[in-house]
């Protein structure tokens, strides 16, 4: 019985009396392992799926395969687990911003299955975002089980994401940087330490299960100054490709919404289109890791026009898959598009200046990948570390940093919010810790109400009111109806100063006559941002809070500043 009780209330365990950081590190190991296993499972099932479907590749009707896969994944998400399509990373960021990282338990497996269906049948999408959401959901649910608080839960969500990325790419630093840069958005040691531990755990579990291998093999490149400068041109090209991909994804999304019919049918249409493209350019199908490997290794022997066409085709296929309702991420497509763009650029350079000693095309493919990742995610560090780790090519670090920096800047110039954050920013849901929006969304009106106001009655004489003024500490006096007690208006001392010193008025004026009835009021459930906007527009310093026609209290800028400052101090300094 006692054991049972112990399991029901894990917060009573002695371990929770331990240091907060130690506890988080222990949790991070568990979360990192779990999400690492999740990504290994997805990886394995994708391999199994492609092996199983390999026999159908020779048939003429092969182009309907992606359609079937996308439709099935869409049906699964919509009917069985009741979750939205898409890649899920914005959902994780949203829940981190708004709900302290609360995620549903079913999110920890739903995207794995749906993305496996989409990608395994040839849809152009990546398996990384699905494992990120799975890992994040695993972290969130472990935190929920142990009833950890919001901050700890957010850290564990980051741990899950870090473990997933580390495990799927065998890249611990990239996982860690991605989780902090994109998911958590807060560079603090309380986050960094557990997330780093989770990355280690995730990578280790994947190495145990699948062996330690660098995903795309290591190649040596000869890089001179000319090639370093040439990468700037590639950065521009990569930025253009990321912008094109972002725009295409969004426009496909809007177009698909105009098509009437069930969601699965839309997904099937998108999948079918991808299948048809795939008939002519098989490079666009699936997550495309083989293509990336071939491109880096310089084994992709097609000419300039063909590679350029393939880049466009991959962009279109990705937009068709994800925009029309397939399930998967943009990580892997970005790598493929990046390497295609890089090789295109290399071919282009060789054509216009064939006598120069260009580095081989693998070098440019690598830089292109970094450019696309940095441009799409607008997360330069993730791009740099990911490419270095998955290719094992530390010697390209200098041009890599250049390309990442330039691409991020250019993309940020044209698209101020990255692909992940765009929707969130548009709806005002991106609330990074320590920002104005975050503080305002955390504070709410009931916390700011000052209740020490003296409510006066409508039919009170000015003489009686003056006695009340003598004893009060405030300049505002809400006026209520004598019978119903409803809020009628407010008296501000500034407004009635002339009457206060005129004894003739004392017995001649009722408060109902001198109160201000046209006041802006606030409801306790109002958004603080909205309240502040009203105050700014009308130049008010205080507003009455009224609920169900009753005066509740006063909200003033002075109290807001006081609380705002405390909130900001607690949120930021560490």
């Amino acid at each position: 019985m006692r054991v049972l009780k112990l399991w029901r209330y894990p917060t009573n365990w002695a371990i929770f009396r331990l240091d907060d950081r130690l506890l988080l590190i222990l949790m991070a190991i568990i979360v990192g392992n779990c999400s690492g296993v999740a990504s290994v499972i997805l990886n394995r099932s994708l391999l199994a799926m492609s092996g199983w479907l390999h026999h159908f590749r020779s048939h003429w009707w092969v182009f309907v395969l992606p359609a079937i896969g996308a439709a099935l994944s869409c049906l699964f998400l919509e009917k069985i687990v009741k979750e939205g399509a898409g890649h899920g990373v914005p959902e994780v960021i949203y829940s981190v911003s708004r709900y302290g990282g609360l995620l549903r338990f079913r999110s920890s497996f739903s995207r794995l299955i749906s993305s496996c269906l989409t990608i395994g049948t040839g849809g152009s999408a990546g398996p990384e975002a699905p494992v990120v959401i799975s890992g994040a959901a695993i972290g969130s649910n472990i935190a929920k089980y142990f009833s950890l608080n919001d901050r700890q839960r957010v850290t564990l969500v980051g741990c899950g994401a870090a473990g997933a990325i580390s495990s799927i790419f065998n890249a611990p630093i990239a996982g860690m940087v991605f989780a902090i840069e994109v998911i958590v958005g807060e560079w603090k040691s309380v986050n960094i330490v557990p997330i780093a531990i989770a990355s280690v755990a995730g990578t280790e579990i994947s190495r145990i299960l699948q062996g330690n291998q660098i995903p795309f093999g290591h190649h040596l490149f000869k890089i001179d100054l000319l090639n370093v400068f040439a990468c700037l041109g590639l950065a521009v090209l990569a930025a253009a490709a990321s912008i094109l991909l972002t725009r295409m994804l969004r426009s496909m999304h809007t177009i698909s919404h105009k098509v009437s019919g069930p969601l699965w049918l839309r997904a099937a249409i998108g999948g079918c289109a991808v299948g048809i493209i795939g008939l002519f350019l098989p490079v666009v199908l699936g997550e495309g890791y083989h293509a990336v490997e071939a491109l880096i290794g310089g084994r992709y022997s097609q000419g300039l026009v063909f590679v350029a066409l393939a880049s466009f085709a991959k962009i279109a296929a990705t937009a068709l898959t994800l925009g029309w309702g397939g399930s998967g991420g943009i990580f892997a497509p970005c790598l493929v598009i990046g390497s295609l763009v890089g090789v295109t650029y290399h071919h282009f350079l060789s054509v216009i200046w064939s006598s120069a000693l260009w580095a081989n095309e693998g070098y440019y493919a690598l830089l292109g990948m970094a450019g696309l990742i940095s441009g799409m995610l607008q997360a330069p560090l993730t791009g740099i570390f990911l490419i270095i780790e998955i290719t094992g090519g530390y010697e390209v670090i200098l041009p890599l940093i250049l390309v990442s920096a330039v691409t991020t800047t250019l993309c940020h110039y044209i698209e101020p919010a990255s692909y992940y954050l765009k929707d969130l920013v548009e709806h005002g849901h991106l609330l990074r810790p320590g920002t104005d929006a975050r503080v305002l969304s955390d504070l709410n009106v009931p916390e700011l109400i000052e209740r020490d106001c003296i409510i006066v009655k409508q039919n009170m004489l000015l003489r009686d009111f003056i006695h009340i003024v003598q004893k009060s500490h405030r300049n505002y006096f809400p006026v209520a109806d004598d019978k119903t007690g409803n809020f009628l208006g407010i008296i501000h001392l500034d407004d009635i100063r002339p009457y206060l010193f005129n004894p003739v008025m004392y017995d001649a004026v009722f408060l109902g006559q001198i109160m201000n009835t046209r006041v802006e009021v606030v409801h306790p459930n109002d958004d603080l941002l909205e309240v502040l906007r009203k105050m700014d527009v009308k130049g008010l310093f205080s507003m009455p809070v009224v609920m169900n026609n009753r005066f509740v209290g006063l909200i003033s800028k002075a109290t807001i500043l006081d609380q705002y400052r405390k909130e900001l101090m607690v949120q930021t300094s560490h």
Partner: protein
Amino acid sequence: MKLTINEVARCLRLPVTTVDRWIRQGRIPIQKSSNGYIVNESALEKWAAMYRLPFSLPKKINTQLQEKRLENLLPAMDRGGVIYGIKGDDVETVLRGAVEKMQLPLASSKEKLYQCLLEREHLTSTGIGKGVAIPHPHDPLPDTFEKPVITTCFLEKPVDFNAVDDRLVFVMFILLSPSIKIHLHLLSRLSFCVRDNTFVEFLKTYPDSSAYFSKITEFENILDRADNS
């Protein structure tokens, strides 16, 4: 001592809802377990200092509240006593006579007190009308007086004090207080009494001290009732 969540909120001068939210969000070192909150007082104090948040334990708040209750007229008047038959024809001699007869904690401060009162009198008269004057130093004298003192001085014959209504002054309340706040508090109560014409008429009968103090008690009761209503 174990703090409750309400006490923590009071210590931090925050609404309870904010403290509750901070616990949920993990911003404050208070843990929530199945049987309530676990508050570690010293950790909380350290945390508040780190974030530079105001934090004071409830004990201190209580003492502050006690300080807030200011003394009323009667104890101050009792301390100062009533002096009858001050001789003199002008402000200076009357004041000097009064100061000489007053019982001060230090004899040497009499000259200084006289100078202070005179200085204030030069600024503008303290005769507030109806034959009453309230001489007092311009600045409080916290070194000399720990508690406020009001000495009631009845003059032998009315003196021209340059009062606002040009009436001759027959009674002075020498008001000495350790702080401006107490000074204003007592001045306000005293002026409430003087505003009443019956009180001034009563003073003109040169009452003995017990009758005088009981009259003051009456007025104090009226004032207290008005404050509490």
